[in-house]
């Protein structure tokens, strides 16, 4: 179905006063423009207007606006929250997009064309046909070391990253290892240092030379940035202190996977600990 057909079909419905996919065309145009600029300058934070949404800022409005400005009636949408298809945030966003754009949703990653995610990247590799949209709470990777936006922008412009590196040096001196567990800063395309959103370390290597396009939206902070397909994404590391990902001593209790990011679940009944894949779509597929 193309856009005209969709509009013809829906002109008598209660949502008719809204445009397709909720946002009006000029808002979409502005977001798409920012997206194009973001893709053209990998890792650079492009400011955008971030209009009001029927969801509070900080609940995924950045990702939602990107999704809505890209979605078409024939898309297959997958929304996950910390890897899970069924959590409240994911379900509500999925329902909302389904209502205003009437797209099909799916939990199967290989079927989806558009994937919106919070804090995880799906375990299965994606293809050139797919777009991954990440929700971002804090787009500025340098915020930890510099509170002023004016100053961080200057630092990005001049590639003045000594203080970020110093932050990591101090971590190693103090704890013997870099203590950042999620939001691990990366260098994109050998240039900008970028915040990859609060994904675990486990997911960082998946961004490197990936086939899919990754788009990052921060609604509250009004920033969009992107990693185009086949782009170098390197975590910050020292020659004698290499980046490493999480290690799990066990396999998933449900599907037996030894090669996925696991959540620890503590039983309410007897306090026993079990580990399950955090990516439910992946786990379901393996268990089926």
């Amino acid at each position, binding site marked *: 179905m193309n856009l005209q057909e969709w509009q013809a079909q829906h002109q008598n419905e209660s949502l008719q006063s809204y445009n397709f996919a909720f946002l009006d065309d000029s808002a979409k145009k502005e977001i798409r423009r920012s997206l194009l600029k973001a893709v053209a300058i990998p890792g650079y934070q492009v400011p955008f207007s971030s209009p009001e949404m029927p969801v509070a800022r900080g609940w995924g409005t950045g990702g939602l606006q990107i999704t809505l400005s890209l979605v078409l009636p024939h898309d297959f949408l997958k929304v996950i929250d910390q890897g899970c298809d069924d959590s409240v945030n994911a379900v509500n966003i999925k329902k909302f997009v389904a209502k205003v754009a009437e797209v099909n949703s799916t939990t199967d990653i290989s079927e989806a064309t558009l994937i919106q995610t919070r804090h995880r990247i799906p375990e299965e590799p994606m293809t050139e046909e797919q777009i991954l949209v990440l929700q971002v709470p804090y787009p500025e990777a340098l915020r930890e070391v510099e509170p002023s936006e004016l100053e961080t922008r*200057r630092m990005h*412009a*001049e*590639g*003045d990253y*000594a*203080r970020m*590196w*110093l932050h990591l*040096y*101090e971590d*190693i*001196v*103090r704890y013997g290892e870099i203590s950042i567990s999620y939001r691990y800063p990366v260098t994109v395309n050998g240039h900008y240092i970028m915040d990859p959103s609060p994904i675990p370390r486990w997911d960082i290597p998946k961004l490197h030379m990936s086939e899919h396009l990754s788009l990052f939206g921060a609604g509250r902070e009004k920033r969009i940035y992107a990693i185009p397909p086949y782009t170098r994404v390197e975590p910050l590391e*020292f*020659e*004698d*202190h290499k980046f490493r990902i999480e290690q799990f001593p066990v396999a998933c209790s449900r599907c037996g996977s030894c090669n996925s990011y696991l959540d620890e679940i503590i039983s309410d009944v007897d306090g026993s600990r079990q580990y399950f894949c955090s990516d439910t779509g992946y786990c379901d597929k393996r268990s089926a």
Partner: protein
Amino acid sequence: METLLKARKLSKVFGSGCPLCRESTGPDFDTNVCPHCHSVVACNAVDFDLYPGEVLGIVGESGSGKSTLIKLAHFEWEATGGEMNLHRSALPEGLGELLADAADQYTRNLFGLSQFQQRQVRNALMGIVYQNPFLGLRMNVSSGGNIAERLLGAGWRHIGKMRERASELLEKTEIPISRMDEPPKNFSGGMQQRVQIAKALSNNPLLLLLDEVTTGLDLSVQARVLDLIRSLQREFQLSMLVVSHDLGVINLLCNRTMVMKHGRVVESGLTDQILQDPQHRYSQLLVASQL
């Protein structure tokens, strides 16, 4: 021997400035505030040459423009006018090509460079020690980290090697290596000053800028810091620009001296000459008032 650093007509005016500023301020008028537009002429048309391995002193009272000169040379403030050129052989490979006019032995006017290039020049061959260690050090970061920051800025990415270099420098500046991972806020004023010196030396600078380094330290500590600076200068053949209002410091460290007042250089020459036989009225006053 060829000049390492050439500065010509360095000027810094705070305020809107007017055509009459320069001719109505200075020692002859006993002010550096322009009576017409009330701009402050912090320094005006200062020329100097710095040779390799030479220590040039700048002496004068508070507000005479000596610290302004250091801040201009370190690219912290934007100059209102003037030129500064470095000898190309001093620059590391790559940078020299970037900044050079083909046939010239000297770089282009360094004030015309972008901030990014200025930072490259600064990282590659300048070090600075401020009067107040809070300006030069991050007080909450370990002393080793403070030194590492400059190395990281210059592209070092090996923790072990950086720590090795840091301990080498701390040893030179007489800080116990066991305190390398302590932040400078735990240290005494003299120790902080020595950490600052270690930090300034970390990238093997050719040019060291010292801004009132011993002011505020007690006399015995002053003597040790000066001793340290003197021996480091000999060891590394540093070229230094030393700003002080203390003639004792100037006498101890500097080969040549400029006397400044109200933003102008009133007298310059060999340090001994200026101290023994000052020519300008103000220099005479300065020398005579020395305890």
